[in-house]
């Protein structure tokens, strides 16, 4: 079991967890993720690491309630435990001195872009960050992103905070204004990353996206997370999660991510009918045949 050292909502439906996982905290590099499982009947879901503290042996993850598992997870509080956490998985972000880098975070994706933005800043890049959300309440990590950026721009879809519009509007403006951009990193919903790729393609700006396909083991074994890169299969868990955006077939990613929409809906319905009963299973922590876990 992996103890939750702290858990707090940072926006409606978005919670930050500090989890005791010393081995992972020691090895984590920006861009990597963990897979977790809440209880014996639970599924395995990948979540990007927001930051870690190797001294304290903790990692942070930021979770948005979307389906059954994330709803269950976000119902857990400080002092409770998560059955399985494995990682760090995936290749770390490529960190180097590129020049000017635009880091774009859409929604909860901002939490995933944050550690890479910080590392790029430390590497000496000029970092322009563009953070977007549906509305004011859902803008997250604004302060943190500000600390690691030379310029920070914020957009909301409905204009309830900062500038109304999409992150791609800001990016387009930067390009039109003739701002020199050496690299763009975009993390967020697939339609947003696809839109970013379309903005930077004509301008010929190297663009990196972090993909989130359906995944089970996270070690390359199952092949469920295969994505089409330049028409070739690659595995997001071992070849990614970051890929060159202009080579990604986003339509196939969207199509494959829709594969379990119906069972996902059914799961969510079951959860809504009796959330407490489901949560009880998670809290009971039963059926753990393996008392020694990779966290310690």
């Amino acid at each position, binding site marked *: 079991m992996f103890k939750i050292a702290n858990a707090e909502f940072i926006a409606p439906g978005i919670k930050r967890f500090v989890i005791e996982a010393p081995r992972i905290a020691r*090895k984590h590099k920006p861009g990597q993720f963990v897979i977790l499982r809440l209880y014996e*009947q*639970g599924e395995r879901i990948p979540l990007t690491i927001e930051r870690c503290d190797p001294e304290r042996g903790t990692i942070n993850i930021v979770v948005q309630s979307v389906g059954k598992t994330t709803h269950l997870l976000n119902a857990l509080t400080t002092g409770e435990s998560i*059955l399985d956490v*494995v990682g760090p998985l995936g290749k770390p972000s490529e960190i180097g001195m590129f020049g000017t880098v635009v880091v774009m975070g859409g929604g909860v994706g901002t939490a995933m872009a944050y550690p890479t933005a910080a590392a790029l800043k430390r590497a000496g890049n000029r970092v322009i960050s563009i953070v977007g959300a549906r509305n004011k309440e859902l803008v997250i990590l604004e302060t943190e992103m500000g600390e690691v950026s030379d310029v920070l721009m914020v957009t909301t879809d409905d204009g309830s905070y900062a500038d109304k519009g999409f992150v791609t509007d800001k990016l387009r403006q930067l390009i039109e204004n003739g701002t020199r951009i050496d690299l763009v990193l975009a993390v967020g919903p697939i339609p947003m990353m696809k839109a970013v790729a379309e903005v930077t393609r004509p301008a010929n700006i190297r663009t990196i996206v972090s993909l989130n396909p359906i995944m089970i083991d996270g070690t390359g074994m*199952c*092949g469920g997370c295969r994505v089409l890169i330049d028409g070739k299969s690659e595995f997001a868990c071992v070849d990614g999660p970051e890929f060159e955006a202009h080579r990604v077939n986003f339509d196939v990613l969207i199509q494959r991510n*829709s594969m379990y929409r119906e069972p996902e809906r059914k799961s969510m319905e079951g959860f809504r009918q009796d959330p407490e009963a489901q949560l009880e299973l998670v809290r009971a922590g039963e059926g753990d045949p393996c008392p020694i876990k990779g966290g310690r």
Partner: protein
Amino acid sequence: MAAPPKTAGPQKTSANPLSPRERMKVPRQHMPEQPAELRVLNFTEVNLGYSPELARQEALRCLQCAKPTCTNHCPVGVKVREFVELIVLGDFLGAAAKIREDNVLPAVTGRVCPQEDHCEGSCLMHKKVESLGIGYLERFVADYEQQHLDMGSVRKAPPTGKKVAIVGSGPSGLTAAGDLVQKGHGVRVFEALHEVGGVLIYGIPEFRLPKKIIREQVAYMRAMGVEFETDVVVGRTVTIDELFEEEGFDAVFIGTGAGLPVFMNIPGEHLNGVYSANEFLTRINLMHAYEFPRYDEPMVDFRNQDVAVIGGGNTALDAIRSARRLGARKAYILYRRSEAEMPARIEEVKHAKQEGIDVQVLTNPIEFLSDGKGWLNSVRCMRMKLGEPDASGRRRPLPIAGSEFEIPLSVAVIAIGTSANPIVQSTTPGLKTNKWGYIDADLNTQRTSRKGVFAGGDIVTGSATVILAMGAGRRAAKSIDEYLTTGEW
């Protein structure tokens, strides 16, 4: 009456009242099994196991050869003659202990070993009548032991003070761990997934190898002193170098198994409904997708859908028989060679056919076709004929021009093999690999190019069988013990 045991042939023993000729006349005892029409509706085990009476009756058939070929053909060298004689004497726990001297997973091998390629295939009786049911007998004593053995009585060897890390908890890792702990070495097994057992857990379905069996065998190993740590991806969570330098291990065995699934690289492989066998079986076995929604992991709805699995090995048969149990209407095996070349166990092919699996041999898919909404709708195939033998010694399948045809399908599972997973190799400096990316290891000592690092199983040989991986684990344990004792590399 046979001659006294001067030759390699049969001998009369005090335990067995029958003469060798009489033994040959006893028919091979049939393995009780769930009727096919019933078992396709559930995931419980197909074979039900021998009763003590059936086991003793079968054991009486053993010719008790002076030079048993069965033991020589067993990758871990199980003393078949001796354990079978103990069954005749009614000493079932003694028989189990005898097997355990060479095989730490008897309940597993008794179920999934291709006995026809090893012990039973070499059995002298096989020349005239059906060979001795060695696998069935092994399974019987292993299950009997599990029901009757007091775990508290499991003996721990005096500690040597040495520590060995085992990477991967599949058949090779478990075997190495079991052998090493019996020598008194401290053993910790690291597993990437949340449950111990590797392919035995995520790959082989419940109806062929119940998870309970693995858990019990693992519990036995815990009682012997083996430690298990799950949720550790060696190479990512901790490196091999760190295991030596920071965690104080004196030797490491790498048994990470068959790695990445191989796809066919034909059009349409990204359609929804096209799976790798690894993903398909992992969802069902490790994640219990067949128990959705009690378990959260989903699976596409197979009821009244047509399903094909591409490949002819045990994995392919496990996948299609699972699809059948999930309610598939038509269930095909598409295999590009003929049935004689199918690598699957004979019993699995027999069981699959009983369950109504349509085995289409000399058939090769060339394209997956969409329904226009991103889902698989059919597969286009070509008929094949067999040409000259290829590098594997099997006759090479060649396409027959103009033979294209389509099979309507909702789900296709690709079970044509695996390639090396690079995570450990790429994070361990100085660890040599071959041109396919598998770890270079001496096939007798299992030593790698790195001092103190040993490797075995599919990560060395490419996809093979449970028992061959166990054989490698056994050789590695012997050689690790020598290294730890002498310090010589």
